[in-house]
Structure formats: C-alpha cells, structure tokens
C-alpha cells in the first residue's frame, strides 16, 4: 500500500517518540483524537500520554516554551498550524533560538514543523512558504523535503541535530505525493542536495513542491523537444549545497531556479547570487529565476494556479533559457 508524505511525517514522529524519551510534541489542536489540523499527530497522544501537548493559540509562546524545554534537556517538536502563523513565532525563532548558540555556546534542540505552500483556495494567509525569512537568521537550519523518504528521514535528522531546525512541510504534498515506502536504502545526509533527474541541456534548481513540478516539466520537455533537463532538489535551503549546484551548472551551462515563494530576496535570489559569484564562468546564459508573483497569494483556484510556477511555466522558462 502506498504511503504519503504526511504518513512519513507521522511515522517519523512516532519513531522519534518511541526512541527518545526527551522528544515531545507541542502545538495547537495536535492532541486527543483530533490529531492536528492536518492529522499529522493523530493517535500519538494515546500512544504517548503526556508527550503530545495542546497549547492555546500562542505561536510566540509555543516557540518560547520549546526553547525553554530544550534548555531543560528535552527535544521538542513544535507544530505551527500553518507556516503563515509561524511569523508570530519568528521573533522567538530568529532572535532567541537562532541567536542562542552563538551567544551562549548552548544549542537549542528544537524542531519547528511548518505546513507551508499553496493549495487551491488556501488564500493569502494559509499558503505562504516563507523559508527565506527563517533562513535569513543566523543559527537556524531550514529543511524543505520534496519526497516521501525525505519527509521521513529529514524530520528524524532534524530532531537529531542539536540546533533549531525549521522543517517546511508542503501541504500540497501531504496527501498528493505518494511512494511505495518511506524507506530509502541510501538516504542522503542532510545538507546535501540531490540530483532528482540527470540531464545535460539545462539545470533546474528546485525545492519542496516545485521539485515534482520541475520533474513534470522535464518529462514534458523530453517528450516534446528532446531536451534533457537536470533537476536538482535542494532538500535543505539552509544549509545550501552550493557544490552540487555548481557541479550541475558546470555540466549544463544553464540554470533556472524555481521557487514557490515570493520573488523578493528569496531562496531563488540566493542561489542565483551564489552561482553568479562563484560560477559565472560556468554559465552560457544568464541565470534565471521563476517564482510566485510579487502579490499576496490569491484565494480563487484559477488565480492561485496562475500565481505560482506550474510545470508548463517551468517548461516555457527552460525553453527560453536554452534559446539564449
């Protein structure tokens, strides 16, 4: 029976709770039979009584409590109901958790789960990605899994890493993305990007839900035009695996970066900046970006589909890139 991306997240949390008594979960509506807005924690309180804690609607305090619990020797996994509301915990994450190791030498072992990204009808405040805002702060790692196996392994790794980790789980992938298993015989270490598809004519850098879109675009281009597109899945935007990006650009000479986030100062900008600074000589054409539009995310499904990069948009952008 196939497993989904959210099954993998649930499985990872169940195993983490089993394996380590210091792990516990905290968030809004996550306990009891309800099990969270997306059911990621369903059934876990019954299995681990006292270790799945419902909170008031207080994102700042959820993160603050997580910091304190980590200082007290625990390994909290905190759930923001939507990444958009993670902004209300951003001060605690950036200024408190993120700054803590450098200031004191004591790392904060917390994991912040953030259901992110757009879904049809999600609208302006239940669709944002925001990984760049969190990645901006020193001291935070930001993971952006794009496969069922990565959702499983990277969440487990996030909790094993002693620092604060922002775990961006894409809501669209929750039940849409399926695999035979979450097991991977050779899981990549976190911090390493993955060549999701090898190619030669251009590189598409993507992460999170843009990886399946980019793979679809690569299929389309292969069948329609015979172009072989290399797709690089960043897996984590911070740390960013610049070596794998540059190696791919060296093979293809052309790069498009795709991100579902807003354009201004985003992960795509960071990738382009790094490639321009460290690999300009590898490029046969200007590095391109394809992001969502610089407006709030619209609610109507037709507007939403036009707001974010779609596989057809990616294919068109690659065609343009190759024409340059």
């Amino acid at each position, binding site marked *: 029976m196939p497993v989904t991306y959210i099954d993998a997240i649930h499985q990872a949390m169940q195993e983490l709770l089993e394996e380590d008594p210091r792990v516990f979960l905290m968030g809004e509506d996550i306990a009891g039979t309800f099990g969270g807005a997306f059911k990621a924690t369903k059934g876990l309180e019954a299995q681990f009584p006292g270790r799945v804690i419902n909170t008031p609607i207080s994102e700042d305090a959820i993160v603050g409590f*997580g910091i304190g*619990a980590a200082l007290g020797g625990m390994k909290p996994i905190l759930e923001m109901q939507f990444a958009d509301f993670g902004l209300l915990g951003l001060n605690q994450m950036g200024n408190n958790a993120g700054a803590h190791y450098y200031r*004191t030498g004591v790392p904060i072992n917390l994991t912040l789960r953030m259901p992110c990204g757009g879904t049809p009808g999600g609208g302006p405040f239940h669709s944002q990605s925001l990984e760049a805002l969190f990645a901006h702060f020193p001291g935070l790692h930001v993971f952006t899994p794009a496969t069922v196996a990565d959702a499983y392994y990277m969440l487990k790794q996030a909790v094993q890493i002693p620092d604060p980790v922002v775990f961006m789980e894409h809501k669209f992938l929750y039940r849409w993305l399926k695999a035979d298993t979450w097991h991977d015989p050779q899981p990549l270490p976190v911090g390493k990007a993955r060549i999701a598809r090898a190619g030669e004519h251009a590189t598409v850098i993507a992460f999170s839900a843009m990886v399946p879109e980019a793979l679809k675009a690569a299929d389309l281009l292969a069948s329609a035009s015979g172009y072989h597109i290399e797709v690089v899945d960043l897996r984590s935007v911070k740390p960013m695996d610049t070596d794998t990006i540059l190696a791919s650009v060296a093979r293809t000479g052309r790069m498009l970066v795709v991100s579902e986030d807003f354009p201004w100062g985003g992960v795509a900008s960071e990738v382009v900046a790094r490639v321009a600074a460290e690999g300009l000589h590898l490029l046969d054409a200007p590095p391109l970006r394809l992001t969502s539009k610089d407006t709030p995310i619209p609610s109507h499904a037709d507007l939403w589909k036009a707001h974010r990069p779609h596989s057809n948009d990616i294919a068109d952008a690659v065609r343009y890139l190759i024409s340059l």
Partner: protein
Amino acid sequence: MKEAALKAYKAMVMARAFDTKTSALYKAGKILGGVFLGRGHEAIAACEAVFLRKGHDVYSPFIREQAGRCAWGDSVLESARTYFGSVEGCMHGRDGNVHWGKPLEGTTAPISHLGAMAAVIGGMVLAKRMQGITDAVGVTCYGDGTTSVGAFHEACNMIAVLKLPVIIVVSNNQYAYSTPNTQEFACDLLDRGRGYGLTSHACDGTDFLQTLETMHSAVTAARRGEGPQWVVATTLRMCGHGEHDDASYIPETLKAAYADRDPLAVARRQLIECGWLTEDTDAALNRECTDEVQRSVAQAQKEATPNPATEDWQATSWRPFR
C-alpha cells in the same frame, strides 16, 4: 527567615556596590553600549531569588536584577565580565551588559525583546515536570512596561493553562523607559494576574521585609503545587533607564516621595530593628562587598577580550560540510 533576610540583604549591598562602580565606569567611558542599574529594585530582585535553589530551580533575571543574580548565587565577576566582554565570561564578548546567563545552571541568557523569556522559563519548568521533578520552580521578572507586550501575555496565559510552578514577578517601577504607567495600561496590574487565573500577590517593593514575606509566600505556594503565582511589587526606578538617561521626565515630587524609601536603607533599618544586623556588621559587610566588586571589576578589565581574527564565526553547533 533571618538567614534568608541576611542573604538577601548581602545581595542587595553587593548589587548596589556593583551598580555604583559600573555607573562610574560607564561615565568614564570604560564601558561601551549601556549600563543598567537596579537602584530601587534591589529588595524585589534579591527577595525573588533568595528562596530559589541553584541547580534545582530556574531563574530568568533581567535588566535590574543584579541583586537577584547575587541572591541566586552568581558572582559579580560574571556580570563584570559581560560588561567588559571578557572571553572568560559566559558570553565571551558576544553579548553584553545585562545579557548573560548560564542556561545549563538554570539561568536564562535574556534577549532584549521584552517578555520573550517568560515562555522560556515556562518551557524550562515544563521540562522539569516531564522529567518527574515536581518541586522545582521558576522565577521570571519583568517591568510594568513588559506587561503590555503580546509575547508576555501569551506566556502568562500558557503558564496558567499548564498550571506550571512559575512565579511571575512584575516590578512596577512606574516608568517603562520614559513612559509612565498611565500611558502603558489602564488597569490594576494585580487584576492582570487574576485575569490569567494566577494566584496574585502585591507588595511594596521598597519595604524589604514585606517583599521578603511576599516572595516567600509565592515561591512556597508554587513549590507546594499550588500553581503559578503573580507578584506585583511597586517601587520607583531611582535612576535612569540606563546610565545614558537622566530620567528628567520623572517629576521631582515623585522622586521626593521616594527619597526615604531607598530599599537598601529601608532594609538596613529593618534588619537593625530586628536585631539581625548591627552598625558594625553592616559596615563590615559593606567593606566586604566593595572589595569584592573592586577585585572583580579589576580582574574582568585585565582579562582578554575577543579576537575577531580567531573568533569562531559559527551560529550553529552542527556544521554541515559547507
């Protein structure tokens, strides 16, 4: 109570001596950034911390809490090291002035964002509970201005909902920087605690023995399992917000009303009346504290400061390959 009273008083004397020294050093240009005194807050700070057990309880001191740090059991040397950025200090010059703590010993290293540490202390106490330690308590302290901050509200509410043994101390010194109470809130601060469902206490923070009794009741109740406690202790900030600030916005009439309510002088008077202190023992204590402050400041000034060329510019403990 005599033992706690004398321990708290010594912390107050030490803190005053330290504050006097750092103020002078700031004005002489020897300390950069800022110097923040606890003048007027000594009784509250010392009494909130004196009933805590280092190594068992947790404590989140902040801006005017030097006396609390001393009562908790940290030396003024650590405070001096943070002011001077000594690499021997626990912040290694990476954070300064009052921003220091030893999280693994139970004190937080506060950030500047007011109210942020209330949730952190809640989490530290929650960790104790999850580890089966039920008689450990946490003390966290704030000024009147912080009660207006959203993060503080969230934390107080969550501490109340989770029924954690945390004592939230509000030192109402009547001014948040230059903002008087009337522009900060339109209620009785005691009602705020009641509103969260916290057991609430009030005391005159310039009255040493009353403050000691109040903090004792609050800490004892929390330790006994009676849930979180809220203490509003009223005083006047008898200095500027920092030593860069002359506090000229505080009316002279208000300053005059507190002229004979310096908590240190009140404590001395009360302890002598109780027969727990004599003029001679007080003079000896003052000499001891002044000497310790002098030694600590001299040592901190001599210690190495951070070297940018050898600084480990890493913000995370886990270091990926690049």
